[in-house]
């Protein structure tokens, strides 16, 4: 009886504290004018492959970027990504919130970003596990 109580207490002590998971971030840098990609594959490169980067400039000066990634896993992955936008001098103008996305096994996903400022010319795409 007492041993049962002891086991229960030990189990409860494991439940109490969950540490915040460490977030490893992969960065992809590019210019909105041409698809010039610098891909640091150290973290997410094991699980994701960048297939293509498309950029478009709208008539109102807004840039649209789409990075197509493919999962190397057979299992579903939960990742999150965000775009940061810089002007021609490299000064950061804005950043989107982290966007969660579910990528099914071996599937492709489009990581889309829009610059809300027409002064943005360069971007940085950050990908992390969710």
């Amino acid at each position, binding site marked *: 009886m007492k041993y049962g109580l002891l086991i229960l*207490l030990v189990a409860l002590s494991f439940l109490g504290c969950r540490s915040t998971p460490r977030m490893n971030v992969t960065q992809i840098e590019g210019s909105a004018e041409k698809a010039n990609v610098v891909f640091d594959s150290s973290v997410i490169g094991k699980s994701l492959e960048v297939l293509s980067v498309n950029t478009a400039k709208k008539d109102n000066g*807004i840039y649209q970027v789409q990075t197509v990634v493919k999962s190397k896993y057979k299992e579903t992955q939960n990742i*999150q990504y965000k775009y940061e936008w810089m002007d021609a001098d490299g000064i950061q103008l804005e950043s989107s919130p982290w966007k969660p996305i579910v990528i099914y096994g071996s599937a492709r996903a489009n990581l889309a970003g829009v610059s*809300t400022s027409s002064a943005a010319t360069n971007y940085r795409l950050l990908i992390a596990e969710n």
Partner: protein
Amino acid sequence: MRKISLSLAMVAVVGSMMVGCSSTIKYDDPASTRNLETSFGASDLQQVANTMVDSMLVFPPMVAVTSQRRPVITVSTVKNKTDQHIDTESITDSIRTKLIRSGKFRFIDRTTDDAAVEELKIQNDSGLVDPKTAQKFGKQIGAEYILTSNLSQITQSAGRQTDVYYKFTMSLKNLETGILEWSDEKELRKLKTKSMFGM
């Protein structure tokens, strides 16, 4: 002797439980996707605002309009059809701020009209202000479009799982013609699985 060692072990375990979780306070990333509950949270608000702004800025008819001029928009309150109390004005505030920051749209804000009328009365009627610099009544610009939005929720739960689906729909209506020039929706789905032992 065995009883004593058992009691000691229990005291040690209880003690370690109390020591384990000391509360700490630190700053965190405001754009984080971390969720504590299935209720509509900060990350959901940011995603809704971000998706709506991105969609509106690149929608071809809006691109055509905003490449020539900066249309004037007014924002109506969000119809909150969820079972939660949500500060929906905060969602439209975020959307409006991002759209203003894009430099493609101009906005009028009816919520601050009382203060504006008060100030105009002082400028025009009190005799304190030089009439050359006093701003005139009846010169405000009428909005061309109105932004309307709905937030709805569907909840399903069975056993230890709760599935909450949110849908935010936003439309841009031309006030003169009544035509919806743009519309988009953002869906969010949250799944909560209660652990066997947890609360």
